[in-house]
């Protein structure tokens, strides 16, 4: 039986949904599952990790692991993978996963693949599917190694109900800090806001909104919908939106039930981050804007006029 180690995606002490998604997929391909939880106060997450579907929990819990540092983080994952005898190590889609996976692969002498959207297992032959070239094509990749370290693309797998695992905790020893790449400070993203990765609805603002007043207008729509509030790179570069709000190849990959793009042209790098959404709505005054090529519902119009009406109409149907 293949063994899959899932690296728990933990943000500000909260276990993210991708962990259960990855564990569900591991079970679906018939694998034995374990989870590695690395950070500070991770022991408190054990019940949730079991509920998410893990049959073994490798826990690294130390104050020194509170701030992400790729070296120690990867060392913990490699340690857990070795102890478990993992055939595959899966990270959820995150910056820490992207920074750690190649290190872990090098340490385990394993193959490495990022942004995977599917895994097939035949005997011990692993094959994966992943998008490439800004999502323009898909690649079928044969893994010529019995070990694979992978980062799974956001929204690729679904969590199944009722797959709860069993509690079987193994404590990992905390690795030494990386003194050669020492984390000095974390300028924290504003907390209390809806995380784009978790949001069921995302409203994103682009250069069409022009300035702070325009951004505030679009944000009201997001607030009404209790939606995550995202951005194109143009508004991040312009200083109107925080880096962590950027949707696209360099930012977050989102796959909500509803994505509303307001004043966004639909550059390929932006599309690469949101075309996995179930329903896409676009508001743009240019009828030729490429965003309309991917939108289920396109509204050709001036956002300053359209957004207030959308808010009114949505209030009518949602009460």
């Amino acid at each position: 039986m293949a063994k899959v180690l899932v690296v728990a995606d933990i943000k500000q002490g909260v276990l993210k949904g991708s962990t259960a998604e990855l564990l569900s997929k591991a079970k679906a391909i018939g694998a034995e599952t374990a989870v590695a939880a690395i950070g500070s106060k991770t022991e408190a997450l054990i019940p949730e990790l079991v509920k998410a579907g893990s049959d073994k929990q490798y826990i690294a819990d130390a104050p020194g692991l509170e701030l992400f540092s790729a070296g120690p983080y990867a060392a913990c994952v490699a340690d857990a993978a070795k102890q478990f005898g993992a055939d595959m190590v899966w990270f959820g889609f995150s910056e820490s996963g992207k920074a750690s996976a190649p290190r872990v692969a090098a340490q385990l002498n394993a193959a490495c693949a990022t942004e995977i959207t599917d895994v097939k297992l035949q005997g011990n032959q692993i094959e994966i599917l992943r998008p490439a070239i800004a999502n323009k094509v898909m690649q079928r990749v044969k893994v010529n190694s019995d070990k694979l370290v992978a980062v799974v693309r956001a929204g690729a797998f679904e969590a199944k109900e009722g797959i709860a695992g069993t509690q079987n905790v193994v404590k990992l020893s905390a690795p030494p800090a990386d003194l050669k790449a020492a984390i000095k400070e974390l300028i924290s993203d504003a907390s209390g806001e809806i995380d784009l990765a978790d949001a069921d609805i995302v409203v994103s603002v682009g250069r069409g909104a022009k300035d702070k007043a325009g951004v505030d207008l679009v944000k009201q729509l997001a607030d009404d919908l209790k939606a995550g509030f995202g951005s194109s790179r143009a508004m991040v570069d312009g200083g109107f939106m925080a880096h962590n709000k950027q949707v696209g190849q360099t930012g977050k990959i989102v796959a909500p039930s509803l994505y509303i793009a307001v004043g966004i042209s639909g550059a390929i790098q932006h599309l690469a981050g949101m075309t996995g959404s179930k329903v896409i709505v676009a508001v743009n005054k240019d009828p030729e804007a490429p965003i309309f090529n991917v939108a289920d519902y396109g509204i050709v119009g001036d956002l300053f006029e359209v957004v207030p009406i959308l808010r009114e109409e949505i209030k009518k149907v949602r009460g």
Partner: protein
Amino acid sequence: MKILTTVKKVVDVELNMHVKDGAIVQDGLQYVINAWDENAVEASVQLKEKNGAETTLVSIGGGDNTDMIRKCYAMGIDNGIHIEDPALNKADSAIFAKVLQKVYEKEKYDLVITGKQAQDTDSGQTGIMLAQYLGLPCVSNVISIEVTDDKHIKVSRLGDAGTEILEVELPAVVTVSDSINEPRLPQMRGIMMAKKKKINEMDLAALGTSADDVGAAAPKSEVIEFMASKVRKAGQKFEGAAAEIAAKVVNLLANEAKVF
């Protein structure tokens, strides 16, 4: 300070791609410098201008890379190495990283700057693996680099919880995001000077290594087929009076798409 920058030639992602018989149709495609590598080149040149440095680029594969390397010269890169070897045709990131390791070891550099990923594979592994093989510190997804003294740089990276500030001991490897800078357009003087510069063309043997040595004889992963992506179809597009079409779309979202 000696800076090594990696540069890859990739297919122009703005063009339409078609797939036939498991391969990308090459007709009409163009190859350009990887956008994130252009940010890496710009970052190297800015460090050179600010702190003084000798900047070298290395590019693996891509066939005739003369135009691309000249462009980087015109931006301010001093030396260029191009490695071309048929043994690398099926190389994955790990193999590229091994080849880069050989390049690094020949000359030793204080800082290696790579793009955070290549636009053709979107893998984002090579720079990080190179650091692992060399046993050097590494920071990925970097948005600023500042030299603090002979032995240290201060970098910031975009992480999951916010912007992380790190102090890094040199030699080190950093991979940069497009948020780090806006690459300059080469100027006429630079373009003229670039034409006179040599490119150090090498194969694996000239680099003092072999296909076996860098693992190229047995890649750990290989693409066996390209497939067309699922393309979203354009849905309904409404033009006309804002009040009317906005109401119509909200109605459809509620009753057709059932998202409300």
